[in-house]
């Protein structure tokens, strides 16, 4: 961005320099041109020049500042939303733990005690998972990638098998579409474990937000520049007013109530794809299903 601005600023002087060299160093006629003006006109013209220069500077400055302000405002808004969501995610398990403890101190029977303890343990595990996922997300942004040539077909096949044999995925119709002609998927330079994690999260979502009888499709292709991987399902989908929010850390839609998870799965997948200089996007229709598309650049 900044480079281009400098280029625009310097372009006229570059052209001027080139032309001057052209006239001076070649046999082209290089006539001397005299300009004459009365002092009044000169004063007026120089005033005009200074004004326009000043105007331009002020205009650029303001644009710059307002751009900064909007990003700062956006960041503050993101932060507020994140804290709100975190607050929400913490409140429920904490309330359950408090209730469990209250039960524990008033109940006599061993079985009652046992069930209170179990419920407290579950809530603590939920909180630990949340902390662990948050840590994972921050770690992912800085962890050095362990690069190798990754055979994506193999990784996707593994994810497919894992999804199909998952206990919670009963009676879903699984499909895996990998190109064979004219050539199979090329290898991609990346961190195999992290890519596996990203696909796994998306597969996990597809299973979580679909019902028995729904179809889940895992497909990949190559378009010359990118490897395009898609995870699609005919599940519950995401309502239009929530689609923008799914990338927010900890955000969980209405359909996610009662479904276990921390609201960080997509954020984690996005962080991984970004680390591979790729793109990730989501399309969904409420009641019809969802497709997440990842593009990983070839020849990294």
């Amino acid at each position: 961005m900044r480079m281009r601005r400098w280029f625009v600023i310097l372009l006229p002087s570059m052209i001027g320099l080139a032309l001057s060299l052209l006239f001076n160093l070649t046999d082209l006629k290089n006539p001397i041109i005299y300009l004459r003006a009365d002092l009044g006109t000169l004063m007026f013209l120089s005033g005009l020049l200074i004004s326009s220069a000043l105007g331009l500077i002020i205009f650029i400055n303001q644009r710059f500042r307002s751009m900064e302000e909007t990003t700062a405002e956006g960041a503050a808004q993101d932060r507020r939303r994140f804290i709100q969501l975190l607050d929400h995610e913490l409140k429920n398990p904490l309330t359950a733990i408090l209730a469990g403890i209250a039960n524990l101190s008033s109940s006599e029977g061993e079985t009652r005690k046992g069930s209170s303890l179990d419920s407290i343990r579950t809530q603590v595990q939920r909180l630990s998972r949340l902390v662990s996922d948050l840590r994972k997300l921050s770690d992912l942004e800085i962890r050095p990638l362990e690069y190798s040539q990754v055979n994506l077909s193999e990784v996707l096949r593994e994810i497919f098998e894992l999804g199909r044999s998952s206990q919670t995925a009963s009676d879903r119709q699984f499909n895996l579409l990998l190109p064979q002609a004219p050539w199979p998927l090329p290898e991609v330079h990346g961190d195999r474990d992290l890519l596996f994690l990203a696909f796994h999260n998306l597969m996990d979502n597809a299973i979580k937000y679909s019902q028995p009888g729904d179809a889940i499709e895992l497909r990949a292709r190559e378009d010359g520049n990118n490897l395009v991987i898609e995870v699609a399902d005919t599940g519950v989908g995401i309502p239009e007013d929530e689609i923008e929010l799914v990338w927010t850390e900890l955000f969980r839609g209405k359909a996610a109530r009662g479904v276990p998870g921390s609201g960080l799965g997509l954020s984690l997948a996005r962080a991984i794809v970004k680390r591979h200089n790729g793109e990730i996007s989501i399309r969904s229709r409420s009641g019809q299903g969802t497709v997440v598309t990842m593009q990983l650049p070839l020849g990294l």
Partner: protein
Amino acid sequence: MKDYPNPLILLVDDEEAITANLAPFLERSGFVVHIATNGEDALDKIHSMQPDLVVLDVLMPKVDGRQALRILRKENNWTPVILLTQVGESAERAMALEEGADDYLNKPFDPHELVARIRSVLRRSRQGQPPLSAAWRLTCGSLIIDRRARRASLEGVELFLTPKALQLLEYLMTHPDEMVSRERLLDVVWGWDYPVGTRAVDTRIAELRHTLGDDASNPRFIETIPGQGYRFSKDVSSLP
């Protein structure tokens, strides 16, 4: 001062909520427990009580756990130390071992896991001598690992290992003759839970064995304990 029938543990953490709950648990597990609330206090108590093992939190006021450990090791004091690391990031974990901790555990942890760690460190500790985890170079037969240079060689030939495989080898070699669970190894390499991670550990171990030319059915280095984990050969020693 080793006249206690049970091992004496010094538990160092500035969070009273943690010491107040952990100490009784450790006592029920058969240890005698004393508490220190910061690094300075910990150093004093290590000098006066000579505990058998120190459980040391990293983030503390005044002298933090890492500083305390450094001071202790500089005094040539090799009391076994288990660090309680806060951030679970890979760098943090690597650092814990480099600074002469005998082991580390990420918060939050299961107290049973802490007891298991304490027992295995106590079993491993060589009275008053530096632990293997404080040595830069370790050897087992013709296998040599140089932890600072992040290199390993077998019969003088340098091995090509991925960073994760090297990390695994490092952890196994600093814990010889000890059954290390897959979950623990997963934590070593990742620091956080990873889906179907135990399988990922098996893949890494297979990769490591392949590079080491180790036969799983008749292992020289890494032995599989079915259904539990892995165990490295007991013949590990430190090199100068």
